[in-house]
């Protein structure tokens, strides 16, 4: 199976409460918290579309679109 390619990484920052779960458990360390303690995808080219951030997000704020 071909490797999935990232189409879009969307974060609804008005839903994010800044718990840092996505930041800590991202296997490629793509995400970080900004100065407002909200998750941002700082290193998108490293994303491998594993979707673990989307699955673990307790605020349902992350959506990873792959193709």
């Amino acid at each position, binding site marked *: 199976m071909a490797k999935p390619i990232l189409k879009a990484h969307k974060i609804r920052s008005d839903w994010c*409460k800044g718990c840092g*779960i996505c930041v800590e458990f991202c296997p490629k360390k793509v995400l970080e918290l900004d100065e407002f303690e909200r998750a941002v995808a700082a290193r998108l080219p490293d994303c491998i579309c594993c979707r673990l951030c989307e699955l*673990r*997000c*307790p*605020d349902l*704020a992350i959506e990873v679109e792959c193709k």
Partner: protein
Amino acid sequence: MAINKYLRERFFPHLWCPGCGHGTVLNGMLRAVDKLGMSKNEIVMVSGIGCSARISGYVDFHTLHTIHGRALAFATGVKMSRPELNLIVPMGDGDALAIGGNHFIHAARRNIDITAIVMNNRIYGMTGGQYSPLSGQDIIATTAPYASIDPSFDVVELSRAAGATFIARTTTYHVKQIDDFIKQAILHEGFSVVEILTQCPTHFGRKNKQGSAVDMMKLYRDITTPIGSKAKQENPNLIERGIFVQEDKPEYCREYEKIIEKAMGS
């Protein structure tokens, strides 16, 4: 997002604390429903009282937000009058096994086709951190400032003894198991119990010095192991996760239909 169609987005962001595991359970449960391709109209979610019970307000199914511990009693009524609907009952540990302990064991004994999700954070979060029957010994809580002396229930063993026919356990760290187990539990005909260890960083974590939500999830990763693993033999203190029971037994609503037929003389 595919699962957003099941949400009542007007109530978001939700009321749960930052890092609360209940949101991850909601996330996984909606993915299970989405994978099964179910419509909103064939699901009824019934919940009681507590942080966990607020989950029914966020989903766009038929929802009932009922009284403390009695969600399974209401769900039994719904299921018996409309057996074609799928009943999902998310409960907290106290809601399920303290206040609703009797309803829980009797629903399991009857083997009625309901999916019970026990969101076990080992504490009463909403009311300020009192200890619950799942807290266990040596746990600090508002009502146990010098540590709890009560042993805890084991949800899996209790459900097994009471007669549940599908029993699984996982944690918020093991997210892929959440939707897999809930999916299988919904498909199972009979009383299904899915226990999910979910972190309460605000009360349980803070009082018991377990750190942030991230630290608590790492702890779930480290203190659990798949059923029957070699690690469990070497360290019996590890908590097993996986599917413990999956068996076919007569389901309550079907048995009830047979009795109606008998009574009607056909």
